[in-house]
């Protein structure tokens, strides 16, 4: 690890890209085409290397992964001026581990489709321009907009970038900063806020003896998967907790569950009420912690009713209740597939009710430890922001809109006609590394440097134990001299706008200054705070977590409608491979088979064998999934991990732009979503779309890894019962 107190800036300045063996990359000679003739390769020496730089020996530098909003700490292996490999930073939330997206974030950095210079729309198409011209265009179009007529539309932002962005908005006289993430936990946050008094509390999976998760894919896409995986390992050792997952389509977490229960989409809340009913009526769990209104609702949902509504059998309900009753403390979570419905708020509320009923609050759910500096905290995304933004744009509210770190034209349902509405914005600026679907519609494109080329601070939205500021430092020289870091651009815009107090030569200088001004409680006693933080990759600020309240809201459930012409539920599932589509341009991610279906490089629809039999389709047959907003044709994968009434199509593929690896690859289920909205939180109910499926008659082999779905009687993975495990390895 980097044990050197160094000035990274100088290091990079003096280090020629590639260092020794720069002209041809070492390791790239092909075994069959070897030349060892003299004078065929070039060697460039260092100009003036740092003491610790030894060619041929890798150094590790800390940074932060920006591939998803979790913000895991990483160590990057740097050799001869190139970053080669990322590993988890053991001292941060994610520990040693790093998920596949984090591993592949290197390919974001080295991507061949990165934008290498500013581009402006001229005569209908984007053409490269110089930075001078770009700044001029920006000044002309954005410099003198009226107050309040500009907006930022970004993904999750935190740290000093958020500070600068806020300052910039202020200078423009606008309050409008929309933070949009297609994969979010916004409904859950709203319920947490209402019930617990805190939007993102700390979950202690490792302390739970049983976890019941309603569609919260905490090993895959929910909140902070790598951190949860680490806790999950603890949860599974010793006395081994029991994991139950209730959802319409098997997620990665579901695949690891002891009990995976398929519930009709949108009925997770009903299942939760049913479990509560069993707990109270059969197990004499005292309902006194719940308000009477809640108990009345629970009483309505006896086993038969729950079975009728959700399709979850009485036996399953009783077993789940038994597990929860017998293993305390437990933890009940709710996620994507429960939240993203018209009744998502009630679903999440019902799940939260179980936590209160079982007395988990304060044991496995705790107050989190927010960073004391409010302005550095993460602004987490929601799809409500997208809806509001679309509305505002449609109303012609903005003259200038800045996009950064999000691709709404890909993730927004076609029904919203976001593209059409965006046409009403005269000047759209996209700050992006790639020509994604949104950037292609921009009037001005400013090329960003990659997270591994820039200085940055960020704050992870999920701060369970210790609040921390994550530090990013450049792991190598920028690949292109024409890209700029987001921080530098913000600073530049502030300067162009003539805002006082931002007279720094670079974002790096600003950051050093800003870090220096952090309160002493955060800075601690380090001799050289800056160097120490950069070297460690984080600044930790321990504080007592707040305490949580338990104000349960309304539990009454809305009946899921029958669907009429559209009897099936569309589940646009999320997974780690593609996330919301941002990973579609990474060849490693495309090449990785999906965790559950093992399909690669393509989209697929998951249906239950019974549904398939009814349609008469086999694996690889195309089905047409039709909603009131359009249809998509997609190949099917048939297995028993999806509810009979549901058809699951993973999101993330089907880009129209976004580089050679993403373009034209698969279909985008988000494109046919109906505009269903969860009324309480205002979120887009992405799982609320009803569809019909028909066979198209076309067939193409499904690109799927693995010749057999079962072990064909070999003992490759065998299963022992938890009882045996506890006997032999239990604590």
């Amino acid at each position, binding site marked *: 690890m980097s044990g050197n107190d160094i000035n990274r800036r100088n290091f990079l300045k003096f280090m020629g890209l590639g260092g020794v063996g720069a002209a041809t990359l070492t390791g790239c000679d092909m075994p*069959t085409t070897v030349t060892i003739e003299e004078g065929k390769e070039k060697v460039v020496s260092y100009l003036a290397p740092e003491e610790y730089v030894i060619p041929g020996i890798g150094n590790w530098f800390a940074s932060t992964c920006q591939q998803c909003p979790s913000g895991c700490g990483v160590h990057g292996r740097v050799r001869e001026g190139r970053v080669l490999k990322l590993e988890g930073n053991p001292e941060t939330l994610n520990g040693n581990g790093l998920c596949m997206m984090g591993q592949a974030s290197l390919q974001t950095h080295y991507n061949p489709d990165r934008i290498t210079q500013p581009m402006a729309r001229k005569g209908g198409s984007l053409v490269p321009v110089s930075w001078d011209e770009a700044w001029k265009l920006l000044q002309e179009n954005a410099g003198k907009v009226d107050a309040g007529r500009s907006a930022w539309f970004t993904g999750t932002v935190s740290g000093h970038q958020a500070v600068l962005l806020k300052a910039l908005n202020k200078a423009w006289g606008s309050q409008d900063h929309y933070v949009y993430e297609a994969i979010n936990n916004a409904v859950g946050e709203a319920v947490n806020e209402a019930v617990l008094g805190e939007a993102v509390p700390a979950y202690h999976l490792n302390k739970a003896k049983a976890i019941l998760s309603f569609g919260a894919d905490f090993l895959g896409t929910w909140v902070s998967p790598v951190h949860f995986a680490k806790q999950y390992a603890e949860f599974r050792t010793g006395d081994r907790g029991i994991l139950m997952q209730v959802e319409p389509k098997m997620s990665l977490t579901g695949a690891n569950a002891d009990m995976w229960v398929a519930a009709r989409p949108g009925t997770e809340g009903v299942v939760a009420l049913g479990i509560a009913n069993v707990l109270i009526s059969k197990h004499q769990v005292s309902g006194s912690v719940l308000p009477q209104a809640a108990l009345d609702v629970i009483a309505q949902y006896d086993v038969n009713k729950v079975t009728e509504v959700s399709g979850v059998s009485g036996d399953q309900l009783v077993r789940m209740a038994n597990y929860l009753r017998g293993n305390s403390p437990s933890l009940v979570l709710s996620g994507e597939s429960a939240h993203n419905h018209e009744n998502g708020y009630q679903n999440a509320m019902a799940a939260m009710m179980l936590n209160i009923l079982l007395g988990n609050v304060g044991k496995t759910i705790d107050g989190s430890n927010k960073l004391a500096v409010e302005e550095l905290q993460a602004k987490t995304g929601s799809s409500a922001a997208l809806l509001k933004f679309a509305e505002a744009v449609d109303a012609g509210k903005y003259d200038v809109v800045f996009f950064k770190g999000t691709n709404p034209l890909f993730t927004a349902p076609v029904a919203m006609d976001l593209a059409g509405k965006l046409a009403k914005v005269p000047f759209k600026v996209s700050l992006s590394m790639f020509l994604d679907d949104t950037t292609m519609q921009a009037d001005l494109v400013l090329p960003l440097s990659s997270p591994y080329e820039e200085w940055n601070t960020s704050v992870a939205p999920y701060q369970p134990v210790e609040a921390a500021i994550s530090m990013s430092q450049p792991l190598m020289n920028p690949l292109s001299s024409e890209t700029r870091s987001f921080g530098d651009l913000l600073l530049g815009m502030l300067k162009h706008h003539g805002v006082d107090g931002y007279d720094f030569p670079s974002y790096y200088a600003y950051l050093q200054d800003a870090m220096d001004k952090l309160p002493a409680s955060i800075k601690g006693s380090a001799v050289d705070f800056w160097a120490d933080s950069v070297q460690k990759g984080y600044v930790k600020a321990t504080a007592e977590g707040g305490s949580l309240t338990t104000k349960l809201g309304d539990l009454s459930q809305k009946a899921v409608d029958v669907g009429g012409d559209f009897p099936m539920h569309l589940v646009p599932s999320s997974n780690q491979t593609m996330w919301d589509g941002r990973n579609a341009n990474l060849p490693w991610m495309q090449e990785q088979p999906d965790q559950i279906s093992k399909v690669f490089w393509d989209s697929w629809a998951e249906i239950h064998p019974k549904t398939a039999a009814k349609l008469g389709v086999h694996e690889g047959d195309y089905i047409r999934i039709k909603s009131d907003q359009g249809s998509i044709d997609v190949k099917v994968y048939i297995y028993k991990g999806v509810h009979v009434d549901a058809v699951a199509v993973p999101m993330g593929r089907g880009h129209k732009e976004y580089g050679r690896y993403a373009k034209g690859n698969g279909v985008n289920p988000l494109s046919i979503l109906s505009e269903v909205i969860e009324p309480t939180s205002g979120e887009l109910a992405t799982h609320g779309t009803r569809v019909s499926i028909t066979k198209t008659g076309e067939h193409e082999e499904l690109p799927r890894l*693995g*010749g*057999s779905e*079962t*072990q*064909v*009687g*070999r003992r*490759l993975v065998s299963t022992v019962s938890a009882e045996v495990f506890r006997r032999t390895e239990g604590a």
Partner: protein
Amino acid sequence: MHTKDINENIAWAKINEDVLRSMENPRVGYWVAVAACILMVSCAVLAEIYQYQVGMGPSNLNWPHMWDLYIATFVFWIGMSHSGTLLSAILHIIGADWRKPIYRFAEAMTTFSLLTAGLFPIIHLGRVWNMYWVLPYVSDRGIWPNFRSPLIWDAFAITTYLTSSAMFLFIGMIPDLAICRDNARGWRQKLYTVLSLGWQGDDRQWRHFRRIYLLMACFLIPLAVSVHSIVSADFAMSIMPGWHITSFPPYFVAGALYSGCAAIITLFIILRYFFRFEEYMTIPILEKTCKLTFAIAMVWSYLTLVEFASVWYGHDMASKEALIARFTGAYAPFFWVMLFCGIVAPFGLAFERMRRHLPTMFVLSLILNVGMWLERWMIVTPTLESSYYPFAFDTMWPGIVQWAIVFGSFGWFGLLFLIFVKVFPSVSMYEVKEMVFHRRHYHSEEQAVKFHRRATDRQLTDQPGTEGA
């Protein structure tokens, strides 16, 4: 029923004349055949160049199907080569003199099919340009091939067998080459002068010739058996279900003789028809060949069934699954066709009327060989389709590159053979003369009754050696 297998009254000069006639004045049909073969070879050459440039990918080989048609066809051609040894060496030693008019082209077939077979292990290498690494040469790097690998044994076996069978072919041809020399002019005379090694046909030469010929025959028989046993070791030495089978060596040898004999019938009919060798390649000889083929077919069928049975009654689940997969898996149609061609079709050989009907025999012999080619494919591929590891189960269809090269290999063999029949006598003149001589002296009408060998005939007295000293 007894029919004369050769007319003993045939004049010796006519034998020379007939055989030498077959060597000259190629007709249009010959050139068409040559052109067709060259075309086939060009397909293969183009495919190979493409494969060399691009890699093994276009051949559709994949994980887990690392081997496919190349190895199957390699085994097929190696098998084909066993017929020549059978006819010339084994039948020579056991004294079946009806082989005499037909052994020459069978031997040529041996050599050429080996030349064809030898190409396949080379073609199938991912890095052809390093193929010489399998040979134990003294290297600057001080490294050696892995002598434990059956592929190395293959390299040794094939090169040895090729050398020996080519020698055997050549040595057996020397007296005939001398006849050619004496009758030829121009480049042919020069060629035959060199090749006949100064053969004068005197006593001493004949004595040496007989000895060396017998010696070579004795040497070749164990060699041939070992070669195909070694080829079978490519599979039998592995641990894959469906390959790791103890009975593979005899099974492969039987299969080899089987396909070789079937090929002999094919070529017999072709040569007889086009070169008008009716007087030498007579129906009775064909009948005997057919009977021999039938016997071998039955041995092969027996071994096939033994293989099934031993797997079925064995304890290895994976092997059993592999067997069942052959009968029911993706390649099952080919497997059933193979069983039909290999086990059912040869019963056609059991009927005299069919045996004596040339077109039927021609078609039947081709069917048998299709069966034998499929057999090799069905050994290689279904095992790779489903073996121990379910995650790697996969069905693969060979790509056009593989087909082109396999197709071309037949052209290559045909081309070599076509050249052979016009440059060298495809019927052994001196041995036919011997045969005629013997028939005249021992097999005349009354002698035939007296001396003709029959199993039931216990009154043999002074049966002369059919191979004169």
